[in-house]
């Protein structure tokens, strides 16, 4: 990974690293990417991408509203203020 690129990827995925972690991960990543690059040796252009391993028939839901049975159970996982979920400042 080019210089500065790892920092940008880290910022993009909101991951912070200590300097030690950074050094370790950046060495690992270079090795792993080198390993990933070995797939370029195989010619597979005639194949379509397999997004899933099997063919999945389309599944569509009828447009009927139905309430989830345990809304309080959902809200228990957050901090709540007057029916609203509290989130960080924007």
């Amino acid at each position, binding site marked *: 990974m080019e210089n500065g690129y790892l920092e940008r990827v880290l910022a993009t995925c909101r991951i912070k690293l200590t300097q030690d972690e950074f050094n370790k991960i950046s060495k690992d990543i270079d090795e792993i990417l080198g390993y990933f690059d070995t797939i370029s040796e195989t010619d597979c252009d005639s194949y379509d991408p397999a997004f899933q391993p099997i063919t999945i028939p389309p599944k569509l*839901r009828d447009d009927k509203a139905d309430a989830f049975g345990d809304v309080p159970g959902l809200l228990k996982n957050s901090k709540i203020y007057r029916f609203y979920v509290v989130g960080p400042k924007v």
Partner: protein
Amino acid sequence: MKIGLEVHTALPTHSKLFCACSTEAAEPNTAICPVCMGFPGSKPVLNRNALEISLRVSAALHCSIIKNSYFIRKVYFYPDLPKSYQITQLEGSVGHGGYVDIGSKKIRIRRVQLEEDPARIIRSEDYSLLDFNRSGVPLNEIVTEPDIASEEELRSFVSELRSILYYVGIDIDKEVKIDLNISLGEERVEVKNVTGIKNLIDAARFEKKRQSDLLQSGKPIVKETRSYSAESLSTVSSREKESDEEYGFIFDPDLSFYPTSGIALGKPVIASEIASSYGKYSGTVKELIMLDRDSLRLLEYGSKNSDIKNVINAIELLKRHRGTSMPNEGFGEMLKYMDSGLLPNEDAISALMQGKPVDLAADVIDAKDIDDEINRLISERPQLVSEYKANKKAFNFIVGMILKKHRVDPKYVSERLSAIIGQA
């Protein structure tokens, strides 16, 4: 000036795009479930109706319809986005490569995509508050090419789009969010999340002035994202990095490919195209039918057998009496009277709406009688014509006189008056 728009409108479905939660809920965080809250373990299942509506929107915008539609994950971090990725579309969008004809030119449509709305976010000093009722509501994002070159074209485009969406069942005025891409120079400025049509026009106007001022003073226009404030009628730099979006769209492996071939689209209704077939009346017809499917129905029914002028008059008359819901049979009757120079009054209209017989003696008058009456009154008081030129209220006298004798629509009388005086 080059303007391109990304118009986001909510689709009129009962349930959300990927879960069964209702799209209509008043109290915050009541129409929520593991799927639209992005809970670990939950999985999306596509709403058939949302897919079908998107196809109809695409067809009405003259897009080519993709054979197999699919969804991607667009990752970005913001508190209102429950999974930190939005399920949306790009290459797999339902519609590609269409246009909207605004008369003077065609505004090209790049694509119509189906995607989920984020949660509603309320900003506070030290935190934010989230209502997930809106999270997962189906949206259509309509992306145009940067073909709009003036405020006038922008207005025409919006009015055409509003009408096209109206006939698909989408009310653009109920909820619309628009990203406005506008450039006078080289660099593109994106004004994000403009809500409503009025704000869109105002934001475009402000940006045009801001950018042309910069150009005139030789200052550079910076490529950036801005936001619009309705209070100050101006845009401000959002100072948000654009770089996030260059990362990582992937096929959403929780979903599959959705064939569109089995879905019946019906013929799209494009009101202005219909109106344009009415020759010199096309302008009037367009006014009548752009946002009124009843008027369109009456127009198409009536113009088969009756004089188009009478059909237009009849629809205008019904509009004044809020009677455009009149069934076709009643409207046919009404046109019969009008074709033979008779005018139905309010009672006649209400009888026709309910399919009851019309009292010919009491409720239908001869239009010629009114004209004669007007001519008589004018000839009695010739000064009225000059008085009218000074003060239009002078007519109220004649209108009042006629209304005493005939139960007729006062607006009709005023119109005839102007017409007759105009000739005089």
